[in-house]
């Protein structure tokens, strides 16, 4: 009797993956996308045992103009003890090639929009049942909203057609994780400021300054009133020792957001580097008034101020005065 109940539960669990009407049709209509897309020129790498990660990653990298063999990627992402590859390492491998790994927000129409823009999407799916989860990386290469199917390069199948609800169920169970590899300076189909800046900052943090600069510049054009892209651009300039450009960028960010303590802090350093330590102190003290008492960087600001005071400068060049006055046109 208990055995029949268990069997019924297993069957029900299998069937729920198939429920739900025309999800893709609604999504593509809602987002004004073409009724069907297939990225036929997307490379195909048939996976070997436990290597769906390298196969899927090689597929998106190849489509992004960086062809690579799955065997090469195995050394970069495969974890033998886990019999598979982990998401952060796939993202890291994209980043290490100077591409921008941009994580999508989790909606099917954003995924479809990326496909419509010509970019295949790396996805994680959770297949299997109950105590036997089977995690699997695949690459979405298209959809057909009339037939309500999603097309994938998956495993050893070059062109897998999955009914959209079935795809969505396995994708949902894997947290709706989806990533595209963007050329630096290219925006995604549905740009999200915070996700884009975060991805670009990560690129910057592993030393890919040229790529990060291009992407920050694209973000400045897309979101001209946002302080963070200008702050990021200024940090790239600082990393390159281009202190004049850095100071300009920090100043622009502060004009948009006077409470950006990070920009206030870094601008002080830039001014000091430009040979204007007195102005650096004055500007820092002046700007600190705008910083909230709970700001996590208050301690850093105090430290920077103390360091500037400790240098004991009593004079600086006349030109330095310009940095403290908006009307001044200092180089």
């Amino acid at each position: 009797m208990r055995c029949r109940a268990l069997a019924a539960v297993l069957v029900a669990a299998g069937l729920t993956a198939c429920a739900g009407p025309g999800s893709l049709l609604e999504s593509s209509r809602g987002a004004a996308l073409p009724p069907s897309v297939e990225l036929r020129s997307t490379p195909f790498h048939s996976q070997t045992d436990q290597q769906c990660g390298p196969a899927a990653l090689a597929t998106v990298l190849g489509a992004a103009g960086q062809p690579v063999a799955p065997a090469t990627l195995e050394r970069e992402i495969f974890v033998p003890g886990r019999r598979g590859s982990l998401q952060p390492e796939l993202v890291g491998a994209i980043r290490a090639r100077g591409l921008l790994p941009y994580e999508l927000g989790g909606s099917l129409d954003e995924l479809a929009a990326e496909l419509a823009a010509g970019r295949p999407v790396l996805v994680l799916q959770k297949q299997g049942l109950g105590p036997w989860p089977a995690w699997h990386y695949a690459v979405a290469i298209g959809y057909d909203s009339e037939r309500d199917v999603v097309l994938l390069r998956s495993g050893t199948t070059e062109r897998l057609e999955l009914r959209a609800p079935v795809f969505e169920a396995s994708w949902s169970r894997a947290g709706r994780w989806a990533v595209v590899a963007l050329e630096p300076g290219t925006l995604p189909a549905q740009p999200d400021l915070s996700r884009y800046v975060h991805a670009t900052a990560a690129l910057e943090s592993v030393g890919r300054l040229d790529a990060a600069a291009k992407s920050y510049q694209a973000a400045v054009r897309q979101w001209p009133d946002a302080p963070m892209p200008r702050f990021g651009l200024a940090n790239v300039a600082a990393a390159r020792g281009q202190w004049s450009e850095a100071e300009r960028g920090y100043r622009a960010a502060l004009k948009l957001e006077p409470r950006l303590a990070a920009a206030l802090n870094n601008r002080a350093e830039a001014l000091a580097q430009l040979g204007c330590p007195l102005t650096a102190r004055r500007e820092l003290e002046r700007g600190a008034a705008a910083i909230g008492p709970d700001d996590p960087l208050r301690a850093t600001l105090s430290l920077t101020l103390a360091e500037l005071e400790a240098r004991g400068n009593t004079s600086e060049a006349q030109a330095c005065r310009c940095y403290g006055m908006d009307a001044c046109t200092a180089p």
Partner: protein
Amino acid sequence: MIFRKAVVYALCFAVFNLGSPLVARAELVGTLQAVESSTRAQDLATVSAALARQEVREQMAALGVDAADIDARVARLTDSELQTLADRMGEMPAGGDALAVIGIVFVVLVILELVGVIDIFKKT
């Protein structure tokens, strides 16, 4: 406990001598840090990141990653990615095979057969 403290002090010394990989100067706030708005002081964040990095190195080695590859793999990850791996490397999703699906379906069919719901397997 004492050993862990010694490791922390050694790491602090090493980190402050090498400088943070995130910023050009010790006084600069990195973009990632500003974006992720860490509530810890910059110093503490640097130490935490160093500890997470060490943790991930050890776990990778324990999970069979080639020692020659570990440095490069760790270097390309952000501090928060390292923290995620340090915390969950053993249990987080590890994508490996689509082939398991066929196996699962087979297992389900066997179970259904055994409990008499279906009768599809030939008996000789």
